[in-house]
């Protein structure tokens, strides 16, 4: 078994990326994710990698675009208002089908918002991380361990699809420390094999004019053809949908939550069960693609209602819930926002108001 170490979320994310083979990081400082670049600045030179503190977010994301287009594993991270500045670069990578991996450690918004944690970038992350209607797999960890596992895996998904992958976490998980087991360091041979798969697309070594897909923009119907290819690829993602159903077998009250809100809801579900209330939780682990069918296929004769728990006002995942539920049961919201943290007690209190009404 791997060694259990006690790590801060941000540092664990950085170490997981290095172990997955990340050898280039560019980023620009912003709270609450500064320990990712700080860790990378020290760690990457130890493994022959390169760390660059960009002069801005725009520069950093374009460096990531450049690095990832050569077939090496690269990463960047930022937080909320910084991630907004990534939009152009992410969209270009989606257009050029670059397997970029990046992390958003969410804080309060909109605008400069608050430096404290929030979950206010859900719609941006899942629906439009840039112009042009591209889609991405977005992974939403609910523990430091999942932050590690998802960053480690994100490269495989990005390279398989030749598409950006986002790990959407938040300032609670970024700043808290928890025990984690770290995955093994990928060997040089394994990384060479990853690069080899990318060889016919990577920009390195190709003469000018080569039709590698690693460039955006097309003439004639070229762009439409690229859109059609990308859309076909997005349709293969049903197999990638991941969802946790917690104590759902006989549940009458269903919590719907992702990330930090999900781990809090899970604790509240256990407390409610101890009181004899049949509660359960559905946690989207991939928030894009979203597990619509898990919600659509609920037994609405049994379910009395859904409690949407988010650190965002107004609620954002609510859009996906409404789309899946189609009004078949009431949805109640328990929300905080702008850097104010949810606690077990607050979720319990908000949930009880609803439970008293419907049970």
């Amino acid at each position, binding site marked *: 078994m791997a060694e259990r170490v*006690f790590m801060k979320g941000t540092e664990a994310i950085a170490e997981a990326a290095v172990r997955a083979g990340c050898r280039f990081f560019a980023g620009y400082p912003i709270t609450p994710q500064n320990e990712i670049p700080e860790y990378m600045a020290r760690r990457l030179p130890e493994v022959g990698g390169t760390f660059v503190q960009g002069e801005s977010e725009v520069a950093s994301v374009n460096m990531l675009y450049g690095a990832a287009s050569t077939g090496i594993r690269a990463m960047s991270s930022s937080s909320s208002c910084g991630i907004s500045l990534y939009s152009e670069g992410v969209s270009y990578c989606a257009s050029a089908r670059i397997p970029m991996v990046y992390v958003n450690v969410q804080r309060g918004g909109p605008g400069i918002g608050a430096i404290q944690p929030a979950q206010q970038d859900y719609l941006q992350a899942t629906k439009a991380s840039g112009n042009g209607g591209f889609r991405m797999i977005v992974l939403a960890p609910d523990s430091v361990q999942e932050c590690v596992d998802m960053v480690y895996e994100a490269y495989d998904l990005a390279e398989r699809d030749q598409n950006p992958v986002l790990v959407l976490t938040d300032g*609670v998980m970024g700043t808290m420390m*928890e025990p984690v087991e770290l995955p093994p360091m990928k060997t040089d041979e394994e990384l060479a094999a990853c690069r080899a798969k990318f060889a016919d697309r990577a920009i390195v070594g190709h003469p000018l004019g080569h039709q590698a897909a690693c460039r955006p923009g097309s003439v004639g119907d070229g762009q439409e053809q690229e859109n059609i290819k990308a859309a076909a690829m997005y349709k293969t993602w049903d197999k990638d949908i991941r969802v946790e159903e917690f104590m759902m077998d006989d549940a009458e009250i269903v919590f719907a939550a992702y990330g930090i809100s999900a781990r809090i809801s899970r*604790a509240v579900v256990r407390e409610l069960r101890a009181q004899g209330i049949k509660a359960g939780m559905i946690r989207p682990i991939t928030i894009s693609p979203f597990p619509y069918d898990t919600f659509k296929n609920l037994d609405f004769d049994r379910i009395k209602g859904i409690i949407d728990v988010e650190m965002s006002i107004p609620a954002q995942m609510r859009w996906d819930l409404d789309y899946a539920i189609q009004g078949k049961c009431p949805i109640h919201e328990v929300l905080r926002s702008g850097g104010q943290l949810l*606690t077990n*007690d607050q979720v319990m209190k908000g949930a009880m108001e609803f439970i008293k009404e419907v049970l």
Partner: protein
Amino acid sequence: MERNLMIAGFGGQGVMTMGKLLAEATSQATDLNVTFFPSYGAAMRGGTANCYVVISDDPIGAPVSYSLEDLVVMNGPSLHKFLPNLKPGGTLFVNSTIVTDPIDRDDIKVIKAPVTQMAIDIKNERALNVIMLGVYVGATDAVPEEVIVKGIEHKFAHKPKLIEPNVEAFKMGLEIGRQQK
């Protein structure tokens, strides 16, 4: 069972280190779930610094709580700011060298230890947090004392001459905690 603790004081009193030492030592020496969550806020020099430690058999929900089982206050402002967050029946740990204001609640247990003065007396002024950690562990048995001793040995592995004085400071606190249990 879940036990949540908040430690609060001035920046520089070793509040974060105390929380981290407890949490990391617990993580290393037990199979328990444990979280450490620092709260700096938009802190100023001399302002309050605080952190939360949750230790539990079950997976931990929020790493932050405003309904605390245990609260450690190292300075006066922390007492006034965070005492309302202590549950009825909870335990308040007071650095009685510095916190001299009356404690206007009778539904909690209060454990006092003059840790700042004790640290000065043993000529190890920075060890007030380790003494307080001893008081906390002695009074609560939140983790076995060996867990913290091992944690101190690990933390100071690169400065071995600091291990003994810190273990001694911890044990001094442990005695006080046990006496007031």
